[in-house]
């Protein structure tokens, strides 16, 4: 089996990002590569692009990554982080337009079954359908 798709969880809030990652871990254990980033560099609400780039790069280096985000600005930061990746890795990363918590759990479950990046993205985005 190929390596499962990894998950990058982004929120404006460190607690939300970490909490979501915790819920995912509880369901799937260590089977899926998982990273989270939340809050700005000063520990306030927002995004820290340097931290997102570092964590996303570490995940993308090892395989495909689905990115889940909470609202607005986090998506813009995610897009900028993806643009900094080497060309070969950039194609391995996709952003899911899905609710963060439910999307992350569904994506993780899908990833553990060996689904492709496109399948994981579709599952996350269809979580309420």
């Amino acid at each position, binding site marked *: 089996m190929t390596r499962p798709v990894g998950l990058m969880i982004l929120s404006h809030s460190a607690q939300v990002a970490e909490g979501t990652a915790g819920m995912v871990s509880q369901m799937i254990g260590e089977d899926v590569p998982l990273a989270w980033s939340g809050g700005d*560099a*000063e520990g*306030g*609400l927002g*995004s820290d*692009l340097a931290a997102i780039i570092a964590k996303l790069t570490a995940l993308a280096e090892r395989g495909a990554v689905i990115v889940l985000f909470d609202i607005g*600005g986090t998506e813009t*930061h995610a897009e900028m982080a993806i643009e900094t990746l080497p060309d070969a890795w950039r194609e391995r990363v996709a952003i899911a337009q899905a609710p963060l918590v439910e999307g992350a759990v569904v994506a993780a479950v899908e990833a553990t079954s060996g689904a492709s990046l496109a399948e994981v993205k579709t599952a996350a985005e269809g979580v309420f359908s």
Partner: protein
Amino acid sequence: MDITPELLGRLIDRSASAVQAHASHLTRLDQAIGDGDHGSNLARGFVDLSARQGELTSLPLGEALRKMGMALVMKVGGASGPLYGTLLIEMGKAAPEGRAVTLSDLAHMVEQGVAGLKRRGKSDRGQKTMLDVLCPVADEIAFAATAGDVDDLPSRVREAAADGLEATRPMQATRGRASYLGERSIDHLDPGAASSQLLIEAVIAVLEEAP
């Protein structure tokens, strides 16, 4: 127009002090229809630019603008960082190398900056964003460059920015955090448009003083 290190330094300083002086006003606008962090976020980014002024102004213009843009992207934790950052980065990429900036150069730089901003924000005019100020400003500069008519360009740009800001008041937001408010975003000025208008004012004030 020769953008000397000294002039670039004054542009950075004046922009930073304008954002700092109006930070609470921007925050109030953002509390009404956003998340209330616009003033403090932007001030943080521009204070950082001011602090690194020496390093930035010693660079060629294009590289200086690109570095300033990256600094805003990295420093500002809200969406305004990537948006203003992209504007400056794209303007920097379009800057001429090794010679003074002509009006055509400036028009091209602003046009490229605004185009990058539209891509980054997946947005266009009429959506109650900073583009409602920056697009009319870009149009005025482009018109002046084509017509070769620069006589009252500063006052026309000022007016375009002020009118563009006011035009966001009756709009309903369809991009950014304000879009969650739907019709309740109507009757408020857009905070991003307000900061863009402030920055345009600051830049024009410096350029008018320049010899």
